């Protein structure tokens, strides 16, 4: 919970991690990838305020105490959603598994939601594992990383027939939320690995599922915006947007936020700190204080207190069925968080149609 100027914000961190990237977890023979991956993450941290930077040793394996203090005690977060990333070709126990996350979550009831994951290249075994994880950890969301390396393959897309089997199984198992994260490789390598058009197909064919595109498709924000405005069940995950731009590139941050509010809308945007890349404290506090810096932004949708309440927590709370205490909810005339029809189609009803 964060309170500023008499307003109270319920904070859901919808995209965060508890990883172990220390050298003793590196797979022999793949050390250069394990090292390269965590150093790349560490470079992202450098885009935040200097006083929040960590030395690489801490960054490789922060502790449970670090996490609880940074996220909940100092970071204003009420509920945090663990998003696993396996990378088992590079990290012996995995980088950030469902099991590791859930074990921490079990010690702190009510604080965490443990999402799980799947990889269509794991076939029938993976389908069984998915069902087991849902049963064991109560997962209603999954994190998909399409650039994961798996037995010589450099990645996959949501259009693959194998992926459709898993999406069907997700619906049967009661999974609601599919968080999609693109990376630099795919099969075949000559295609743009960051392309988000596969999400468009899956979102159309699986209307009961919500697709939260993390990092708003960065580095393909424009493709994400064109796609998201066509699909009622596509959401914008703001991890990296706030962490990577708000401090380092405030003018671009304002423009990106303006575009997202225009194309996608405030009901479809969710805050994620991407902890341990960035601590949530400065992101939450900075975002509550944030507004467009000048008149140059006058043709973008306005940012209100209700906008910030939705983005920081109420939208994700709705997607995950989190009970929000009455004091944090919106007034009746401030809209419905996570409303599916908020930004659909470049038609007369859509804010994206203004002036068109």
């Amino acid at each position, binding site marked *: 919970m964060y309170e500023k100027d008499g307003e109270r914000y319920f904070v859901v961190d919808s995209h965060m991690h508890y990883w172990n990237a220390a050298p003793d977890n590196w797979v022999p023979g793949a050390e250069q990838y394990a090292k390269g991956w965590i150093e790349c993450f560490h470079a*992202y941290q450098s885009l935040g305020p200097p006083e929040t930077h960590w030395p690489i040793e801490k960054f490789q394996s922060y502790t449970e105490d670090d996490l609880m203090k940074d996220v909940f005690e100092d970071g204003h977060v009420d509920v945090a959603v663990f998003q696993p990333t396996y990378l088992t070709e590079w990290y012996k126990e995995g980088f950030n598994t469902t099991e590791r996350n859930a074990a921490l979550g079990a010690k702190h009831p009510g604080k965490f939601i443990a999402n799980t994951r799947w990889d269509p290249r794991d076939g029938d075994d993976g389908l069984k594992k998915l069902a087991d994880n849902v049963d064991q950890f109560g997962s209603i969301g999954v994190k998909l990383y399409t650039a994961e390396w798996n037995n010589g393959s450099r990645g996959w897309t949501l259009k693959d027939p194998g992926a459709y089997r898993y999406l069907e199984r997700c619906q049967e198992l009661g999974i609601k939320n599919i968080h999609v994260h693109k990376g*630099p490789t795919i099969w075949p390598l*000559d295609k743009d690995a960051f392309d988000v058009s596969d999400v468009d197909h899956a979102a159309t064919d699986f209307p009961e599922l919500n697709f939260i595109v993390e990092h708003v498709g960065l580095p393909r*924000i*424009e493709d994400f915006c064109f796609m998201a405005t066509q699909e009622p069940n596509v959401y914008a995950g703001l991890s990296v947007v706030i962490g990577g731009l708000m401090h*380092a*590139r405030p003018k671009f941050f304002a423009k990106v936020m303006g575009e997202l509010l225009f194309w996608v809308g405030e009901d479809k945007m969710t805050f994620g700190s991407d902890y341990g890349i960035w601590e949530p404290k400065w992101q939450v506090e900075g975002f509550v204080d944030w507004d467009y810096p000048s008149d140059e932004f006058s043709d973008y949708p306005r940012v209100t207190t209700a906008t910030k309440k939705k983005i920081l927590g109420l939208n994700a709370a709705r997607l995950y069925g989190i009970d929000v205490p009455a004091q944090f909810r919106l007034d009746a005339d401030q809209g419905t968080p996570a409303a599916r029809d908020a930004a659909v189609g*470049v038609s007369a009803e859509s804010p*994206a149609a203004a002036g068109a």
Partner: protein
Amino acid sequence: MTSAIGSRTLLEALGEVRDPELDEPITVLGFVASAEISGDGEAVVHLRLPTYFCAPNFAYLMVADAYDAVSVVDGVRRTEVVLDDHFAADVINDGVAARAGFVGSFAGEAVAELDGLRADFLRKAVLAGTDQVCRPLVDAGFTPADLARLTMGEVPASPGLERLRRRRAELGLPHADGAPLLIDPGSGRPIESDEVPLQLRKARVTRISLDANTGICRGMLRHRYTTDGQGEEDR
């Protein structure tokens, strides 16, 4: 022995090589770690990127384009372009040196060369460049109907206009003075006045996306390397 004059010429040649994704010269972005030519005409260029995991297809294009640009510089008898600190550096460096093409370099992992990928990103560059040229016109009061009627030759000369013209030419799209300012970057057909507002919105978000990505890449590169690249400019 290194020739300073030779290095400057190399740098000029490398200034024509762009990051196809960010649409900026690799020199300006700080990606050229070093560029040297020895007295007997051996050119050695080292490139560096913002992360160890930058997309291998774009990395390959930059190394291959750098090789081609350096090879034709006067006095260069042998060219070596080395990508440093990248997960696929060996495959890319060896493949480019052997003129193996992308499919040949990444055997089994790629099914086509990268012309399609390059064209996709040139189309994005055309959209972003359209915003750069049109934004001042919109601010000056040009209506959608005005913009739909405007030709390239009627727009006041500017570096942005020349850049847009060059990108359109590379794609084989109309780019002479008589060509419409607003065209679909895929088909080249003119944009009708009722389509103009949405086209401008798309152009703007494309430019903002490019700028935001460039900002993040520059920040990551700065964390990774403390020294400036050859020809780096802070934009």
